[in-house]
């Protein structure tokens, strides 16, 4: 399972995000993922490796081909997301609380 910052960095790349979004709709082999994307198939394989290392994607064998899918737990990614969510939310809360307090004085 990957560190959340790795997951974030992995999704920072637009092509990699496109790859991940395709997988979010269901498991696919690399050829199908690459179809319609403006990059070569080896490039897609490279992106898949990064996503796998980040704990966002897993791979399994089906007959002679490999199927890629979103890591079923998705939990570490979700935790990372919530971590960032609260960072932003608490900063906004601090501003609101201090403003409300100042208005009272």
């Amino acid at each position, binding site marked *: 399972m990957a*560190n959340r910052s790795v997951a974030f960095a992995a*999704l920072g790349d637009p092509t990699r995000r496109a790859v991940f979004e395709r997988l979010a709709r269901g498991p696919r082999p690399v050829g199908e993922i690459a179809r319609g994307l403006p990059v070569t198939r080896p490039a897609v394989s490279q992106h898949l490796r990064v996503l796998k290392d980040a704990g966002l994607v897993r791979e399994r064998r089906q007959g002679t081909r490999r199927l890629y899918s979103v890591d*079923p737990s998705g939990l570490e990614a979700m*935790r990372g997301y*919530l971590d960032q969510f609260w960072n932003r939310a*608490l900063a906004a809360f601090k501003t609101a*609380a*201090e403003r409300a307090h100042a208005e009272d004085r």
Partner: protein
Amino acid sequence: MTSQTADLTVRRSITVAAPPAKAFEVFTSGIDRWWPRGHHIDDSPLKREVIEPRAGGRCYGLSEDGTEAVWGRVLAWEPPGRFVFAWHLDGEWKYDPDPAHASEVEVRFLPAGGGTRVELVHRHIERHGATAAKVSAGVASEGGWPGLLAEFAKLAA
């Protein structure tokens, strides 16, 4: 880079220049003043965010069309020191009413000098596991993971 998978808890704290009672009030009754926009889960535009001020109360976004899009439930209402709510949004940012699938957010408001130290713990994220699995089953949807990904992208930029 790896980390412990067991720790699915978010811990955050922040110090605000306002007394605990005011901090508690703004965090709860005043949630509309600070809750990030863009996390509303209904189709109709958000009018305001609401937290009902009692244990068992609902947390919801009130839409322009009057729809109440529930996303949480108050578990502990103890002003000015403590507030706990259940987080009923699943891995697709959809409402899941089952308490067994809800994580939990505890917020403590501790006096610190003339202000307040706010300590937030978001725990039991593993309870979202069952629904997070739906993502791999291909149940991705508009405003679900793709929406989260857009958020990821902004955060990662």
